[in-house]
């Protein structure tokens, strides 16, 4: 529990930053919400700031919304879960959309990366940011009648951290931060997380931003399809593999709207599983489906033009990581110079044009991108990196490959990854770098043996493209991919300097310090270029004009708790 002094100091600090123009009000809102200030407290913080709010990122469906209508079934369309949708292990869009209809997180993640209390009512850190105490919401029950209490939170976390199995996704966010046994139930409605080190980003890791951390009952036996027990607004009714899933309203749901009416408004949901986006687009146009949670701009021109549909666009933080495995040749001997050489071959504007119709945010190989993370203030100045063949050739020579070289790029046939691979291949040619594309099926790309992380192509191959859904902060990405002990690191980058700077970064809430340290981290990543980040994907959600109030950031979520249909 943070001391009152600490909390006041922090509040003053945030207000000061806004007043000095170092931070926008919205950014204050985000940071304050992460810290655990209540909505009222945030309100008074904002009120205490002078000046006007120039930040106008209103939630897309907020303006001009009619009064909610009870009833109706909402149909959504998206890909089928790739494997059995076990919430502990899923990482694909289909699986996540499916289970998040009846499971909930401690904290909800908003589009602008601010946090909103969900199953946790409030939370607060201690002065050293290594113990976080969460107060749970009262009166919440699972749909099997059992109460939601601190024991369930502990059980969920321990299940995710289980050394024998557990969740790769959760471990990628909690690695080096939270160990088994670190989570304690203080009483029925209080949970204490004892971290291994100070971690300012911790609340993000128990929010929707950590998609495996949905809360399950303490005695959950596994087999989600047989035991779809959750606290969410809907309940799983029917599941036809590869075809559809239907949900019906949870009559005992704890949520209420601002007027005190019981949520959800809808009677039920239907998730129709269709693999490829073009088929989904066509279904949307035919009027058979109410909502497409992930609309890919390339190829969806017809949806934008359709008079019956509304496409909500918002900046996303999902990326395609192009990783250079530093443990394998040629990256091992070529080093940073070689990695940078490849990076300077990319025409990122052209890639953005081709794959995202120009709508994605151009990335320059670091996670600290102020446009993608406009809700966070600790963004250093962006580092530019445009296509420069002279630079590339120079770096190639520096790396010891003056006559060019052959490299192999392993990619899964999934999303737009094959196209990105072909663009990279074509753009590397003028520099004398010959890229061979090794394309495999999604299953093969993610297949692995007993010692999974030592054998699966996406971790082990010399150069790969790996897709990542959104992450709420650059720190979360860095922890998952760039730290020396990161479980999901495809680059196997080992930089002690980066690690120590990162730990410093996570141990302070001072915005100026964070900006400074963030700058250092960004520069380190930029100079070493263990991975390329060509873009932060453009997010869009398409729905009928008669559908309102679907929430949820990124492409993984389709939060229908307060959604309704007027027709």
């Amino acid at each position, binding site marked *: 529990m943070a001391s009152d002094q600490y909390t006041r100091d922090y509040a003053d600090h945030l207000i000061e930053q806004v007043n000095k123009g170092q931070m926008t009000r919205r950014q204050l809102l985000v940071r304050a919400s992460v810290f655990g200030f209540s909505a009222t407290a945030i309100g008074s913080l904002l009120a205490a700031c002078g000046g006007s709010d120039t930040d106008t990122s209103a939630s897309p469906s907020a303006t001009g919304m009619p009064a909610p209508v009870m009833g109706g079934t909402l149909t959504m369309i998206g890909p089928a879960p790739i*494997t059995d949708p076990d919430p502990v292990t899923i990482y694909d869009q289909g699986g996540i959309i499916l289970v998040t209809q009846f499971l909930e997180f401690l904290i909800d993640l908003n589009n602008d990366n601010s946090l909103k209390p969900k199953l946790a009512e409030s939370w607060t850190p201690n002065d050293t940011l290594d113990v976080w105490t969460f107060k749970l919401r009262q009166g919440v029950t699972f749909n099997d009648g059992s109460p939601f209490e601190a024991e369930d939170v502990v059980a969920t976390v321990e299940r995710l951290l289980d050394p024998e199995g557990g969740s790769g996704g959760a471990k990628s966010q909690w690695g080096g931060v939270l160990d088994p046994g670190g989570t304690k139930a203080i009483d029925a409605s209080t949970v204490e997380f004892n971290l291994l080190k100070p971690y300012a980003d911790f609340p993000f890791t128990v929010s929707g931003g950590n998609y495996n951390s949905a809360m399950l009952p303490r005695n959950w036996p596994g087999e989600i399809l047989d035991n779809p027990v959750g606290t969410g607004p809907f309940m799983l009714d029917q599941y036809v593999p590869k075809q559809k899933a239907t949900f019906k309203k949870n009559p005992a749901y704890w949520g209420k709207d601002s007027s005190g009416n019981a949520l959800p408004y809808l009677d039920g949901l239907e998730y129709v599983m269709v693999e490829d986006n073009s088929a989904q687009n066509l279904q949307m146009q035919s009027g058979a489906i109410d909502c497409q949670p992930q609309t890919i701009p390339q190829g969806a021109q017809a949806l934008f033009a359709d008079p019956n549909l509304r496409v909500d666009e918002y900046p996303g933080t999902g990326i395609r990581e192009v990783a250079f495995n530093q443990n394998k040749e040629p990256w091992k001997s070529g080093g940073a110079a070689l990695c940078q050489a490849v990076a300077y071959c990319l025409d990122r504007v052209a890639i953005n044009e081709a794959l995202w119709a120009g709508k994605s945010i151009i990335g320059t190989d670091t996670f600290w991108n102020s446009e993608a993370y406009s809700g966070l203030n600790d963004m250093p100045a962006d580092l530019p990196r445009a296509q420069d063949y002279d630079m590339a050739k120079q770096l190639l020579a520096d790396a010891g490959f003056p006559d060019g070289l052959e490299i192999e790029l392993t990619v899964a046939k999934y999303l737009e990854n094959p196209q990105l691979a072909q663009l990279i291949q074509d753009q590397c040619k003028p520099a004398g770098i010959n890229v061979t594309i090794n394309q495999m099926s999604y299953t093969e790309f993610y297949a692995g043996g007993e010692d999974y992380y030592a054998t699966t192509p996406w971790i082990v191959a010399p150069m790969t493209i790996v897709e990542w859904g959104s992450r709420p902060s650059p720190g979360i990405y860095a922890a998952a991919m760039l730290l020396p002990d990161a479980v999901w690191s495809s680059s196997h980058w080992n930089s002690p300097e980066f690690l120590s700077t990162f730990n410093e970064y996570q141990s302070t809430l001072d915005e100026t310090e964070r900006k400074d340290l963030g700058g250092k981290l960004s520069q380190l990543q930029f100079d070493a270029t263990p991975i390329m980040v060509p873009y932060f994907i453009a997010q869009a959600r398409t729905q009928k004009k008669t559908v309102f109030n679907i929430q949820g950031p990124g492409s993984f979520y389709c939060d229908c708790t307060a959604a309704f249909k007027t027709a």
Partner: protein
Amino acid sequence: MLRLIGRRLLLMLPTLILASILIFALAEVLPGDVGRSILGQYASEADVAALNRELGADRPLVVRYAVWAGSFVTGDWGESPILEIPVRPLVMEALGNSLLLAGFALVLIVPISIVLGVFSGLRRDSWMDRTITVSTLSMTVIPEFVSGVVLLYVFAVWLKWLPVSALPPDGSPFYDRLYYLILPAIPLMFLELGYIARMARVGTVQVLAMPYIRTAVLKGVPRSRVIFGHVLRNAMVPTVTVIGSQVGWLIGGLVVVETLFAYPGIGKLMVDAAQSSDVPLLEASVLMVAVIYMLANLIADIVVALLNPRIRKGG
């Protein structure tokens, strides 16, 4: 007749067994080993060996085959390691969907092709006749995904006369399902359209040359009825023969059409299983396809025998 059926069924059995051996061999033996094909290229030898031991893949081939075949026959088709659900309900549902699509195509094709054939026969050597003959015969050899994609574009995207997907929204009445199947069924029909139409055309030409036509017409029977009656009677056997001989390509076409239209049939299930190296699902779906294939051939032969008294009497 019954003796014929019985004998054929009996003959089917050894072929089926040999086919199952072939499928099993390809799936479990040729790739080197099961463990490797599940774990991928980077897995260590130790891992592969461990998985093989766990799957029982280190037992002698004959034993493994016997176990698999035995459980298959008793209805236990195993579980998909990828989807983690039992294989049998998945395969049976997909089979049902495919049979609907194929059946629909076959039902449509007979009247359409015969009408086309008679039409071109009546206007023999006219440009209409030549166009019909040439185009229907050309469509026979064009791959289904080519004709399918062109049809999709023309009828669903450009003219918007037909729906783009192969499945109607949930809860639609049955005839809606058929309406949505029209576009996917057309490429399947192209397989036989040419031959059956040509046969009908030949039959029409023959009939027109016969003197008894004039007699029948003079007696007051409308010409078209005479022609259709005669042509139909004579075309039945060759039609069924053609369809029977093309079943293999029809099944192949089913795979392509289902993939193109994202229709949840056995063809698409098989392709998905193949692409995700889902061995139990792949084995089960391929084996069921083999069974359907043999049954279809058998049924075609039986129908031919029934329609052709010469063969029927011959036993």
